[in-house]
């Protein structure tokens, strides 16, 4: 079976700083992969390479068998990769409704967009209440809900979720992970980048542990716990 996402011997750098050294990994369609490691180990860079935000300085990125190594970010997005970035992954100056409109608007007719928005609102009634509120004024948890709502409405083929639990209360982290389980059940492949290992490993089938820009462990999720410093 062709892996959905495949990174082969990828190097990445920011100017003179090298962030990834010869990293390879592959995710099968429908799988859930946890990407773990301490701060500065290159997790976020790897996620950015996988969504086209950072172009690898060497190596190959393949999505569903097609080479994407030199492609632009929007081309990654159009093949069905969505990257919920670390921190704020919604537009703070736009309203909740406009955020959804922007996310779901491409390639849909007007009625299709409003149908897709209705799906999102039905799943998260709290967002429907705030549909005209400026998204920057939502609480941290609600902002995560907004970025996941669009994922549920759109069902991309791959979701890259970078540090979704950051700054959230434990109970809200629980509900974020419940939502991720829904997204997985709907058929989306997941790449979950996490600092806090417990939650990620509970949902993941496979795990990759990075340290200083190199892969330290790759394999079944159960085996990763020993490698990450819990």
């Amino acid at each position, binding site marked *: 079976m062709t892996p959905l996402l495949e990174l082969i011997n990828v190097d990445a750098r920011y100017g003179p700083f090298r962030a990834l050294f010869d990293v390879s990994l592959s995710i099968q369609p429908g799988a859930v992969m946890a990407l773990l490691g301490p701060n500065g180990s290159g997790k976020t860079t790897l996620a950015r390479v996988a969504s086209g935000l950072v172009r690898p300085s060497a190596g190959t990125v393949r999505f569903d068998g097609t080479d994407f190594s030199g492609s632009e970010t929007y081309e990654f997005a159009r093949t069905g990769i969505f990257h919920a*970035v670390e921190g704020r992954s919604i537009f703070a*100056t736009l309203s909740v409704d406009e955020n959804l409109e922007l996310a779901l608007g491409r390639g849909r007719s007007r009625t299709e967009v409003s149908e897709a928005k209705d799906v999102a609102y039905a799943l998260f009634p709290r967002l429907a209440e705030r549909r005209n509120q400026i998204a920057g004024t939502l609480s941290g948890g609600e902002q995560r809900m907004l970025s996941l709502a669009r994922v549920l409405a759109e069902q991309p083929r791959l979701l890259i979720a970078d540090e979704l639990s950051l700054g959230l209360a434990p109970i809200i982290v629980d509900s974020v992970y419940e939502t991720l389980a829904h997204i997985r059940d709907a058929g989306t492949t997941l790449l979950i980048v996490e600092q806090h290992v417990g939650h990620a490993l509970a949902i993941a089938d496979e795990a990759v542990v990075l340290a200083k820009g190199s892969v330290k462990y790759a394999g079944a999720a159960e085996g990763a716990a020993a490698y990450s410093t819990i």
Partner: protein
Amino acid sequence: MEKFLSALIEGMSFGGVYALVAVGLVLAYKTSGVFNIAFGAQAFVSGAIYYQLHNRSEWPIIPAFLLAVVVAAPLVGAALDRMLFRHLRTAPPLSRLVVALGLLVAIPEVVGLFFKVTQATQYKGIVPGGEIVYRPLSGVAITRDDLSIILSAALVAIGLTILFRYTSLGLRMRAVVESPRLTELNGIRSDIVGTTAWMLSSFVAGLAGVLLPTVFQQVSVINYTTLLTAAIAAAVLASLTSIPIAFAGGIGLGILQQFVSRYLPTGNVFASNVKPSLPFIVLFVVLLFKRSLSYEQGLKDPLAGVDPPPPVPASAVRSRELTIGTRIFGFVVGTWWFYSVLFLWNDIWLDRTIRILIYAIIFCSIVVITGMAGQISFAQATFAGMGAFFSAQIATKQGVSVIAAIFIASAVAAVVGALIGLIALRRRGIFLALATYAFALFFDNTMVRYDWVGGGIFAIESQRPVVGPVDFARPVPGSTTRDTAFLVLVLVVLTLVGIAIIWMRNGTTGRFLDALRGSETAAASIGINATKARIIAFAVSAFIAGLGGGLLASYKIQFSSLDYKAELGLFWVVIVVTLGPRTVEGAIQAAAGFVLFQEWVLPTAIPWLYNHALPFADITAISIGWQQIFFGLGAVTYAKHPEGILESNKTASLTRVQGLIDRFKSRRDSEIETASV
């Protein structure tokens, strides 16, 4: 009633002009995050092209319009986006304002290289028979040109409102301003959206450019930039976001201006001064009382980290080696220069040296406000002018010694500076800069006309100082004495100012300002009073500018308000920002550039080099406009090199030398190692 109606109608046609530009400004800010003060200059490009084609080359209206507005203007916008603003998305709003300021200075001169501005009169607009007058009611008259302006402004405002409210393109443009990369993650090509936005706003600028000259009957860049103030007032009223409010604000301002001029008594100095300066007053009042301007709009792009970090505005990291190196170099060059001026060179060079030193003092004020406080002030020429006018007034009318008068006048400038700092307190960044601009234009257009400031219709003169036995009088022509006493005087003042600035930077004031520039919230958390620190910066800066301005007046004796015009102040900011806004040394470089470029480099040095390099070449002089082009385009680099081009090159070459030394050392070490093995 008739008077009322005709004032209303006439006000609306002026207001249409303001409204069109205001809507354009809001559009540009909304879709690019740039407060485009070069908007008027962009409009001028299309106005000039249209005049050249239609009036001079007698093209028919439609092809001339298409080329000037539909083709040329969007091309300019696309070029600005691709070459400049796209790379500045993560730069702070103030840096982008400086870049736009550089364009404002450079673009008209670039146009001037191809287009003779002086005879561009009798402008014929884009509506055939524009001078036809309609009289919808008795006593009310409106020309077809005026009507076309109002209609165009309304159409543009309606069209853009629809664009932003109902189309996905408008939504995408706003998204790209916040974060181009986040937009790309949604599958949208941010580069195309960004360029489209610039083309659209440039198109509106171009449209304004061909419509406005009918009001003035000529194509002149001054008209475009003066108009800009009123438009800025309307745009600020709209918080730079609402197109309908910008439109209404522009129309309202035009009407207000007509009412003021019709209903205020004539013959009164105040009334006759109020009308031209109404836009500045309105802008100032709006900036003062509009609460929503308190917070900087610029939100941080969550994905800014993907790019290399943007340079900190005018930060103060400088290596020790570079400081020592430049000090030695500066000392050697300075000694050689003064030796030459005193013993080898003629009086022209003495005069230039004195003016360089005086301008260096004035430019030190920009080092304080921009280099240390990280703010942009457009009123430095005005503060210098206050030093000049008030010292001349005090010295001639009260008989106070000139040196004392200059100090008193500078203190007045400092108080005014502090007041501007105080009232514009919560208006950060670009709005603070705009407040200084409004004040500068207000001073130029209103205050200078008063007897007790600019002398009214009487020319005003300053004097040379006499301190104890030393008379700094200007040498009588033909005598053997030279102006060296004044040279020593300004050298002493510059040295004192320079030392004061260096001590301030290393002391509490400088450190507090550094901290405030880094993070205002964090500065408050350790007990730094932002208000006080900023007001001190403004006051010290205005004082220094006043000092330099007073000295310049005293040196020239006969001076005029042209020496201190607000536009000149803009150019000063541009030149200092290009050549080194952080250090006293940078101010001296900028002053040398300011004086020598115009008087020596362009007319003498470049032709000489050119004629000697190419055997058959014979050029006599280079257009003075190149100074504006050169430094205007220099300021465009501010966002990348907030420390100034010269400084960044110095640092770069030092790093290179350091690298060579390191490599040499390591090679030697490894040789030793291999030898020992």
